[in-house]
């Protein structure tokens, strides 16, 4: 298994990270090195083993349906890059 430069560009695009051609080449080499490391895991027979998604075998705790969060817009938007009339501003969203 080896990643092409197109693979790197595709996942960089998925992850919304701009990459230069140099970065693509460097990432390709490093990721392929990493995947060589990861490769040895793939040969292990794990038939019948249940995947472990959580460190503890617990069940979801549920909270009561109560709307009790205070309005903290001012504090939250104090750290926002761009707001107007209480809205977060972003470059035009085109559907």
């Amino acid at each position, binding site marked *: 298994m080896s*990643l092409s430069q197109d*693979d*790197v560009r595709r*996942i*960089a*695009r*998925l*992850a*919304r*990270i*701009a*990459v230069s051609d140099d970065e693509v080449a460097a*990432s390709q080499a*490093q*990721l392929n*090195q*990493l995947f060589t*490391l*990861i*490769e*040895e*895991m*793939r040969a*292990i027979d*794990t038939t019948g*083993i*249940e*995947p*472990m*998604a*959580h*460190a*503890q075998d*617990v069940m*979801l*705790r549920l*909270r009561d349906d109560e709307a009790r969060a205070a309005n*903290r817009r001012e*504090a*939250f938007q*104090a*750290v*926002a*890059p*761009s707001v107007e009339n209480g809205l*977060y501003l*972003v*470059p*035009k*969203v*085109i559907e």
Partner: protein
Amino acid sequence: MQTLKQQIDALASGQTTSVALVTESLARIAAHNGTLNALITIDADKALAGAAAADAARAAGDTRPLLGVPLIHKDIFCHEGWKTSCGSKMLDNFIAPYSSQVAENCDAAGMVVIARANMDEFAMGSANENSFYGPVKNPWNTQTVPGGSSGGSAAAVAAGFSAVATGTDTGGSIRQPAAFCGITGIKPTYGIVSRYGMVAFASSLDQGGPMAHTAEDCALMLNVMAGFDERDSTSLEHAKEDYTRELNTPLAGLKIGLPREYFAEGLNADIAAAINAAVEQYKALGATIVDISLPNTKLAIPSYYVIAPAEASSNLSRFDGVRYGHRTAKTGSLDDMYEQTRAEGFGAEVKRRILTGAYVLSHGYYDAYYLQAQKIRRLIANDFQAAFEQCDVIMGPVTPTTAWNIGEKNADPIAVYLEDIYTLGVNLAGLPGMSVPVGLASNGLPIGLQIIGNYFSEAKMLGIAHQYQQVTDWHTKAPQL
């Protein structure tokens, strides 16, 4: 160098004041942080005001034991009003508008925060060279790394900036820098310390914990940090414990398991010797040794380096320049804004892990990578449970080598991942693990002993470490600054 216990006693007896302790801390920081770069934010005014308030409270009859004790938080715990950068340009301008459970607990105990510790960006790294704020230097030898990702916390404690600091551990990030800097640190059972307000790296592995000089200090600090939190769905509904309760339990009859795989090729000879010496010390304290096997140890690396990046790639998607943090100055479309913001805001290692994570989760690769890694994770957890049928605790090295030179491994970032071989399994299994200083290598650098316990055995592990520290003095060794 004072321990937390000594500070608590001196404050209680009136021998010292919080203002005096904070002033001393600030003086050491002023003298040495320029060299060590262990801290990102230092707020002397806030610290001194907090200390004065603590002294006033104590004078008015407040008897909280940790009231007025100086504290340094890893820059990953949101604390309202404090910059919480996570070592990243992405959050360089982020003043947290709310507090983590850990910060709240420390505040409630009356501790005085004096500074925020440097760290690998988003806790990704094992040398503290991946910080936007520059590398942290190891106080034992400023040419070498302090370990990571809680390298700033470890260096700060080792340099006496404070007696305790908070850290987090996703794949060894408390234990490895504790080992490199000659201090004691514990990563508790997953779910013991709330992750609420702790910037997430890999949610199913991340766990906060204390870093200090001694096991006793760690126990005292864990009493503050731990506790059920309904705001974290993975926080365990575990009854409140006193982690100091087994400090004085004798070790006679203790069965220590030594995993063969932890002493195999690649282990530095000085470290092997120091671990063996510590084991001999434990025998002298009445413990018996059991040879055990953790057969899937090697697979922890691939399993971890699939699971952690996968979770990270998703956890770090929120850093998009919309609601907080860095946003690119370049104009363009919405996607341009995302791509530029994230390209500018994240460092190389973080990008590498995001890309790795996005790839292993992407269409067509999920089963081969992510699912397989989760199955291996189960095998590793099973290995530990089988081992705990034969022994009470597991001991071994924390790291295969002592701290390396700054810049030494820059050319080969992937090779550094191999250094995590002894610490990753604990996170994958969700077990508690700690690092205890047990010697200095011939290069003068500290060596850590790893103690791994079964779930919820923190009190027992801290007792085991404490008993060792009663008869040895490695934990009292301080670097010459």
